[in-house]
């Protein structure tokens, strides 16, 4: 049959990349798989930058005032730049491009049986706007006054006037980079939601969609509906800085608290934007490596729906001591603790999936289990922070630093590595080395805990986050060994990524070619070649016959039933 015109999919695009030259195929590509790799490349680049920024930071905390090799002494303003840019980069330029940009783009069309995204050219615009955002953020390091240094939360009045931090263009470019990044992810988000709703293959009903897709959609929905107020707030901050409007200026009718409300109305849902995609990855990995259906597919969906809804009404738990009306503390404490119910529900479903399964510990499975263990720990300390009376003591201490590293590191590192090791063969067509992967996992899990666990203690002892120099605080002196300990452990945690880098390079150069379905998984992406061809499915779209987790079905000869109807018997 002749090519059918499809709204949003242009004729030159449908003509295929097979005949396309280098630039069309690898740079100006509209193929969702190429765009996913471009997002991955940016994300990995920023991981290196964001990770290395911690070296001078941790050195300064362990041995304050001493020369950092290859860097020099870290001054207080410089420390502020480091801590601000580390947070900004890790949340917005590492976690989002990798978890949503790379995995969302790669997985959604493949898992729902589409040929590409609904709007492939918009998708290309998305990665290019993201690239522009990355360049703007890079430039901001090198302008006079240095990069942004008002904390990743950018609270006014600190961020409102150049005199307060000394960073002029740095902070303005920081705002601009965020604006561009949000535009990029809005384009991506519209694509994700539209693709999954309108371009599913025949038979792929909503209730047969893999949970990885559902969780991408949930995260996208949260992002789409929460980022607007932050953009509004960022416009106000930019206008305050550039032309002297009075949004956040107390004394002439403005209020700096407005920023905190607008920031956290986005900022807290954002942590669920970062949590839900890895939850989806783990929901794919667990059934495959325990040869069992996921426990409670629909229940997980309902729970995730609850997380989406509740995530919009918890934001003020970041503001218990900010000077907002104290009567708000109780309702926001309650909603915050309430959201742990659906999250725990999903985690219990994950654990129940393991129950009496034939578990095998390949690298993706190890990282998935690491995610569960570490995230439960981070979630538990969240209950401390969410309770207003406890938070009044803990707020702004290293206890909070430990808490959000246990939650965010577990989701964006353990969760992302689970997904990465699992889908790498499909993405790049090569197998990774299992021994190196296992070494990477064990080193990471050990040094991660050694780095962050004792931060709880030094936080309880009173060390404030963003402290540039612990020496003036007498009560911290007996605990200085924790800072030294955490610094050494964090360097080893960085070094623990070397096996990963070696593994990837080794595999790309000389890895064994990946078969179509190395893990014997049943979802659609494992029914095409590794890596999948342009437009994914060859001549005929796949026809879907069953749900995504049909493992160990009684009476069947093999312990997995692919979602896709076999081609031999297909129409």
């Amino acid at each position, binding site marked *: *049959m*002749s*090519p*059918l*015109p*499809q*709204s*949003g*999919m242009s004729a030159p695009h*449908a003509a*295929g990349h097979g005949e396309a030259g280098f630039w069309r195929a690898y740079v100006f590509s509209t193929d969702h798989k190429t765009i996913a790799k471009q997002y991955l490349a940016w994300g990995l680049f920023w991981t290196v930058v964001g990770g290395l920024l911690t070296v001078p930071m941790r050195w300064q905390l362990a041995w304050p005032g001493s020369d950092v090799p290859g860097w020099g002494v870290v001054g207080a303003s410089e420390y502020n730049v480091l801590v601000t840019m580390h947070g900004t980069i890790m949340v917005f330029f590492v976690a989002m491009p990798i978890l949503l940009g790379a995995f969302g783009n790669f997985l959604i069309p493949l898992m729902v049986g589409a*040929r590409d995204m*609904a*709007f492939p050219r918009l998708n290309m615009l998305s990665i290019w706007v993201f690239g522009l955002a990355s360049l703007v953020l890079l430039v901001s390091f090198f302008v006079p006054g240095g990069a942004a240094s008002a904390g990743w939360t950018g609270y006014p009045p600190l961020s409102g006037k150049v005199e307060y931090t000394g960073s002029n263009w740095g902070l303005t470019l920081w705002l601009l980079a965020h604006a561009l990044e949000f535009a990029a992810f*809005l384009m991506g*988000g*519209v*694509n994700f*939601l*539209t*693709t999954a*709703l*309108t*371009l*599913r293959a*025949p038979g792929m009903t909503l209730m047969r969609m893999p949970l990885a897709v559902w969780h991408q959609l949930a995260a996208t929905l949260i992002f*789409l*509906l*929460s*980022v*607007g*107020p*932050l*953009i*509004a*707030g960022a*416009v*106000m901050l930019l*206008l305050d800085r550039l*032309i*002297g*409007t*009075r*949004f956040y*200026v107390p004394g*002439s*009718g*403005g*209020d700096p608290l*407005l920023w905190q*409300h*607008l920031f956290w*109305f986005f900022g807290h849902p954002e942590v669920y934007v970062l949590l839900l995609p890895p939850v989806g990855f783990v929901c794919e990995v667990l059934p495959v490596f325990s040869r069992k259906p996921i426990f409670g597919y629909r229940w997980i969906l309902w729970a995730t729906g609850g997380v989406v809804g509740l995530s919009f009404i918890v934001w003020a738990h970041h503001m218990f001591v900010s000077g907002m009306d104290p009567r708000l503390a109780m309702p926001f404490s309650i909603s915050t603790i309430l959201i742990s119910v659906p999250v725990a529900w999903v985690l219990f479903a994950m654990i129940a999936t393991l129950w009496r399964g034939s578990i095998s510990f390949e690298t993706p499975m190890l990282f998935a289990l690491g995610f569960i263990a570490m995230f439960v720990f981070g979630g538990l300390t969240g209950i401390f922070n969410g309770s207003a009376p406890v938070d009044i003591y803990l707020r702004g201490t290293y206890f909070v630093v430990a808490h959000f590293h246990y939650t965010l590191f577990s989701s964006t590192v353990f969760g992302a590595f689970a997904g990465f090791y699992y889908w790498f063969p499909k993405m790049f067509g090569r197998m990774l080395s299992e021994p190196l992967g296992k070494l990477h996992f064990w080193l990471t899990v050990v040094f991660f805990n050694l780095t962050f666990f004792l931060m709880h203690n030094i936080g309880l002892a009173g060390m404030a986050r963003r402290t540039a120099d612990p020496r003036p605080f007498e009560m911290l002196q007996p605990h200085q060994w924790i800072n030294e300990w955490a610094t050494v452990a964090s360097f080893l945690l960085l070094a623990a990524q070397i096996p990963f880098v070696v593994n990837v390079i080794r595999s790309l150069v000389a890895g064994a070619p990946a078969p179509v379905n190395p893990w014997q998984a049943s979802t659609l992406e494992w029914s095409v070649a590794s890596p999948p061809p342009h*437009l994914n499915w*060859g*001549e*005929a*779209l796949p026809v879907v016959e069953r749900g995504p987790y049909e493992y160990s079905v009684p009476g069947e000869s093999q312990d997995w039933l692919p979602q896709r109807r076999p081609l031999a018997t297909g129409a």
Partner: protein
Amino acid sequence: MAIQVQEQPFYGLTPAKVGIWWFLASEIMLFGGFIASFVVFRLGATGWAEAARHLNVTIGIVNTLILLTSSLTIVLALAAIQRGDEAALRRFLGLTILLGCAFLGFKVIEYTGELRAGYAPWTGTFWSFYYAMTGLHALHVLGGIVVNVVLLVTTEWRRRSPHRIEVAGLYWHFVDIVWIFLFPLLYLA
């Protein structure tokens, strides 16, 4: 290779329409952030009603009528392409663009008058909100005009994907509706 491409309309909605609705949902949250902040400040602040009296209500009303009329003309443009009448499509699309430009023209006159009278974005928080909200809205009107101009000067889409005028229309109605919220909030409240 013959490639079979297929879409499953989601409750009768094509991808383009589903996409624009998601985009508009995020836009609602953007203006919603401004409007909610404004309302909270307005309830707690004194003197804002006094400041609002210096706005030009006459121009506000005229502009409201202009935008409402332009929402009608873009629907007539859609009706025109649905019955295959390209001359009428050009006429109504052109009219929509003219009305959009008229709106922006009046807005410029209004801004000039206010700035001359000494009411600048930095005069007070009310004025900061006024200029930021109406300015952001004006940028959206400008964006809509650009889209409509592209639809007017290009012809290929009219046979291949005639639904584009409907998608552009949905956006244009949204911009109209935002103004319906801004006008009473800023000028009348």
